[in-house]
């Protein structure tokens, strides 16, 4: 009974504390080491292509000429996906968090999360077997009536396997990411903010615009960026859906290519210089993703002070 009960407790607690902080530190280091290992692997394997004779690179005009069109193609596909998925995803999340009856909301939430569990090869198969043929008449109509706009320039694809179709498939794939993250954020809006808005006479819509959206903005941006990451890196679905080709402005003709699909399609039979070319393409994708994430971080950091969170 002479020892201080508090101190004794503390000293035993310290062991657990040390173990836990050590484990957490280890996990943190592990992820950095993994990332570094991937980066180093990509760099080493890609190195031969940068010093190679430009004529030996696919296309015969050097790596930059080879990679440029597929970088743009990747960006186009991801952009289409986000333009479609962001508003839909946020709307669905708002419906679940603020409009739907509680029971329906839970069910709908499950269904949306289920979308994320479907393997991408299934999305790809659905895209080229069902979606693409269904879009053919729409593309034909677009080419006929809006063909003067470069992105709808005809003649439209006969198979529907275009970058636009790929973008739609990607949109469906990133939708659950954007929806579930936004939903969680919307649900965290301080009740006091919402009630204050309603008490001041705001309609439900005005309340959402005034209190929920500003509070959730950094969260929405994170959600969209996570979705963008998936859209940029998605391989199988694009490889299956897209009828690849040279970079063209028209979204409804066959053509364009994304980095991930280019790697997936050519990797199995590639060796030697072609292999390092593809790995270098992977390196480029790695860098793009990194830059996108850095930009997202910067945006989030800037918006944080204006959100209602603090």
């Amino acid at each position, binding site marked *: 009974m002479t020892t201080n009960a508090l101190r004794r407790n503390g000293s035993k607690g310290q062991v657990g504390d040390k173990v836990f902080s050590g*484990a957490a530190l280890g*996990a943190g280091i592990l992820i950095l080491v993994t990332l570094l290992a991937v980066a180093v692997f990509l760099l080493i394997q890609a190195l031969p292509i940068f010093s190679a004779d430009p004529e030996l690179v696919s296309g015969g005009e050097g790596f930059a000429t080879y990679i440029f069109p597929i970088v743009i193609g990747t960006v186009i596909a991801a952009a289409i996906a986000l333009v479609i998925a962001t508003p839909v995803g946020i709307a669905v999340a708002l419906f679940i968090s603020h409009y739907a009856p509680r029971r329906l909301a839970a069910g709908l939430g499950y269904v949306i999360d289920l979308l994320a569990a479907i393997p991408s090869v299934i999305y790809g198969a659905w895209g*080229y077997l069902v979606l693409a*043929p269904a879009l053919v008449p729409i593309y034909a109509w677009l080419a006929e009536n809006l063909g003067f706009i470069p992105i709808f320039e005809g003649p439209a694809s006969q198979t529907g396997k275009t970058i636009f179709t790929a973008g739609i498939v990607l949109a469906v794939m990133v939708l659950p990411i954007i929806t579930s993250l936004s939903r969680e954020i919307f649900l965290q809006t301080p009740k006091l903010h919402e009630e204050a808005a309603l008490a001041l006479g705001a309609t439900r819509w005005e309340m959402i615009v005034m209190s929920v959206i500003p509070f959730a903005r950094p969260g929405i941006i994170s959600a969209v960026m996570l979705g963008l990451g998936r859209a940029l890196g998605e391989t199988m679905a694009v490889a299956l859906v*897209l*009828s690849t*080709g040279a970079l063209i402005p028209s979204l409804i003709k*066959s053509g364009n290519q994304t980095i991930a699909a280019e790697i997936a399609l050519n990797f199995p039979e*590639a060796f030697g210089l072609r292999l390092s070319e593809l790995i270098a393409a992977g390196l480029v994708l790695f860098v793009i993703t990194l830059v996108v994430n850095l930009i997202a971080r910067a945006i989030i950091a800037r918006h944080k002070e204006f959100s209602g969170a603090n």
Partner: protein
Amino acid sequence: MKLHRIGSAAAVLTVAALALTACGSDSPTATAGTDAATSGSAGGAVTGTLTGSGASSQKSAMEAWKAGFEAANAGTMVQYSPDGSGAGRKAFLAGGAQFAGSDAYLKDEEIESSKEVCGPDGAFNVPAYVSPIAVAFNLPGVETLNLDAATIAKIFKLEITKWNDPAIAATNEGVSLPDTAITVVHRNDESGTTENFVEYLAATAKDVWDYEVSGDWPKDLASENAKGTSGVVATTTATEGAITYADFSAVGDLGTVNVKVGDDFTKISADAAAKGVEAATPVKDRGALDMSLDLKRDTTESGSYPIILVSYHVFCSTYKDQATADLVKSFGEYVLSDAGQKEAATSAGNAPLSAKMSAAAIKSVEQITVAK
């Protein structure tokens, strides 16, 4: 409370450990078989693990061979990783695989470098897998079309764009050809099917097809495409007026082109493909065992089908120990035997080698020996 805290720390550790284990199990299983043929053989029975790597075209045939061979020889195991022809040849030349499957035979310089792992006589190729490539199209009501090489080449070069083009009508009297646009569908992944198809076009219609022969479709030709054999077939099936080239076993209900050979049009079939292989000439200046073939795409022998893919097995002429040599020999003989070829044809839908060809190939494989 104490327990709870330690518990959560332990949980974190466990998860970390699990994650690490997951990283560790990533090592490729294909290399595990290099320590082949562990026990000696008695009375001709073979045991051990045989490792191969190479062409993905042989994948389903290889599954049949593996099953058939392992059933007939208890205690054996065959591993084949369909990493692609180039990767397979590389693995074989580096000693990482005991045989390779390849859509192209070893080049002279590869034979030269094979002497490092295979001894002074190097490696040799035997044809093991023959598959006819169909030119398949989707025109409701039309099951076959007669086309000559130049017309096929012009269609795939996008110079003929309508099905009722006079060039197509000329060889198809009595067939009602619609005014539908032709949609060309090609493979967008690098493939032996593409390589063999364009090689045929380049050999038989040089004036029209002036592109480099490779496993990639010419970049200048912007047409529809899809991934893999199943992809091009599905896209063609879904698109009226589409035409593609694909493994004959996979074309399903699509119409097929009868290709002009000599003065006749040959309908695609396993027999016609086997005849097409027989028309090939052996590659010159090769070792005694080597059976590399220069396919005669422009053969005029009626009844033979010239658009074929021949995939090889690459073996060493000598192996380091008796057990490995026996194992390789007995596997090679099984693959080339009547039973092996029929087994593959049932499961992969390809064309069996002709009796003459397989007898010659078996003779080569029989001469595999142990290095002195």
